[in-house]
């Protein structure tokens, strides 16, 4: 009995800690003026003025579109590169395969700050500074290591017989990838792609460094740069409204695809 009460309390605590900040953001986004500074579970006079202001005072719709374009492009590119790389790393015997996999993994351990200046030079020399393709390119450095690793694990779990059956049926490598592996891998692609999308959607440091104008900014940067009437005023209401606008779609996405995310995250842990 005591154990069950303790368990219930622990669950309540965990839920409160994880949902609390988001809930408070929602509440705050519906308040204006001095109501912001009176804590409560629900505002006395809820208003959507903050949401209107977010779109009125800066090109926030454009920022959302930028985020969708960059994150979507990064997902498509990452998956296309990672699937072909994973086929080679999982199924083709070649010298230095283990070293290559290790190198890919070690890239993901670099702190972002360490590569910031190098990445800046690279993007500027390619003429991609302050543009969405430049941002996408830099995000590939963040997403490719784990997409390659995850998909390599998934490809390894595909029975060798399946590939050989396709070979006996007369299929070449591209047919095998396209018509046998991709359909079998699609739950893995969904979960890997979603993780890559979240990384690109939430990224802040590169987005702040490699963009200059409001029209090329992505959402996290746009939110951080929302400013009030004076330097001494932080417009909490609008910041929270903007945060809710970009968080809710992510939460919905994750809830819809959570089954695949779970199977994707554990797939690497246990060898099937």
């Amino acid at each position: 009995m005591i154990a069950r009460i303790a368990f219930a309390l622990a669950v309540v605590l965990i839920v409160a800690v994880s949902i609390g900040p988001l809930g408070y953001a929602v509440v705050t986004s519906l308040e204006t003026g001095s109501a912001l500074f009176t804590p409560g579970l629900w505002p006395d006079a809820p208003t959507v003025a903050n949401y209107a202001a977010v779109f009125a005072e800066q090109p926030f719709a454009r920022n959302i579109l930028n985020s969708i374009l960059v994150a979507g492009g990064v997902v498509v590119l990452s998956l296309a590169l990672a699937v072909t790389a994973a086929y080679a790393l999982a199924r083709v015997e070649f010298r230095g395969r283990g070293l290559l996999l290790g190198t890919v993994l070690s890239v993901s351990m670099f702190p972002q700050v360490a590569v910031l200046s190098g990445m800046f030079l690279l993007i500027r020399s390619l003429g991609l500074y302050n543009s969405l393709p430049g941002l996408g390119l830099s995000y590939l450095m963040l997403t490719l290591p784990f997409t390659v690793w995850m998909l390599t694990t998934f490809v390894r779990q595909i029975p060798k017989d399946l590939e050989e059956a396709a070979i006996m049926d007369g299929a070449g490598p591209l047919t095998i990838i396209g018509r046998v592996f991709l359909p079998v891998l699609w739950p893995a692609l969904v979960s890997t792609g979603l993780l890559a999308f979240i990384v690109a959607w939430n990224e802040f440091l590169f987005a702040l460094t490699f963009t200059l104008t409001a029209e090329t900014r992505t959402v996290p940067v746009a939110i951080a740069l929302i400013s009030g009437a004076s330097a001494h005023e932080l417009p909490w209401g609008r910041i929270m409204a903007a945060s809710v606008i970009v968080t809710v779609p992510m939460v919905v996405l994750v809830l819809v695809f959570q089954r695949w995310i779970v199977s994707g995250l554990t797939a690497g842990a246990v060898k099937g």
Partner: protein
Amino acid sequence: MAGVEIDGLVKRFGAVTALDGVTLSLPDGAYAVIVGRSGCGKSTLLRLLAGLEDATAGTIHIGGTDVTGLPPKRRDVAMVFQSYALYPHMTVFENMAFGLRLRDGRRDKATITARVREAACMLHLEDLLDRRPAALSGGQRQRVAIGRAVVRDPAVLLLDEPLSNLDAGLRLSVRRELAALHRRLGTTMVHVTHDQTEAMTLADVMVLMEAGRVVQAGPPLDLYTRPATPFVARFLGTPPMNLLPAVVAEDGTAVPLGGGGRIPLPAVTLAPGSAVEVGVRPEAMTACPPEAGHLAGTVQLVEHLGESVLWHVDVGLAEPVVARLGPDATIRAGDRTGLAWAADATHVFQDGSRLADADLPGRSAQVCPSCGH
């Protein structure tokens, strides 16, 4: 349709030799069963026939064409995998049509549909064509795997342990279906298994392998009645043949080590003192008084199998001799008994090969004692 000629085939994986010079000829339309213990190279041989592995040395001809260096799709062979390896995202129909579409991309849809339906009809899969593999039972998946292979009408059909994932009852019925399928198609089939019953019942040509070599190939009954080596003798039959190490005495009989009896040898002339192995199958033995038989010993264990009784008789050797007797044979453990058998049931091996073909009248006299042929 085509015969298969394998000549001096060698396959090495690094330092490991999986196939050590396999030479084998399978006539057109044969049902060949390659049998042996795990690790004897039988699956490697099948994969080389399929083209999934490259030969280190030697040649493979299918239907008179040298296919040794050709990729699988240019060999006109199809394979049924042990795990079935059905495409999980395709329906039964798509599974069977996949190879047809890839090979004959220009062929019209109607022809492909007709051929899939024909194969499905033959394997009783008509009602399952729209299902996915996940919705099928083990036996149904097996039939789809066979259907996917035969729908292309290959010259040679390869089967890798096709029955090993089925339960015992299903195995029996699929075995019957395989035999019927072979009668109907007339395709050359090569079937790999470790199960001697499968090999005995299905094969026209039985190929027994050991350590990367073919030990003996021929009709299954030939292998059973005239095993070329002690290995073949022990491999076929349950319980296996009794092999007694013995020494040839002055009077031409063989005396088993331990002195458990005197075994008259068939018409072979062996110098007294030569070491031989005398083989006799459990079911060939009959019980008799201790002093009247070829062997005498103490019964250690009696096993009742219902249709027969197994006596484990200690004749002074490391292993007891096993005799299979009629169900009404009665004896108690600890009793002494004699064992006798007909003269043509005696197999004699020397230095690992067969000496006499006493069971083939007229040939025993011409047997060459050194090579056993």
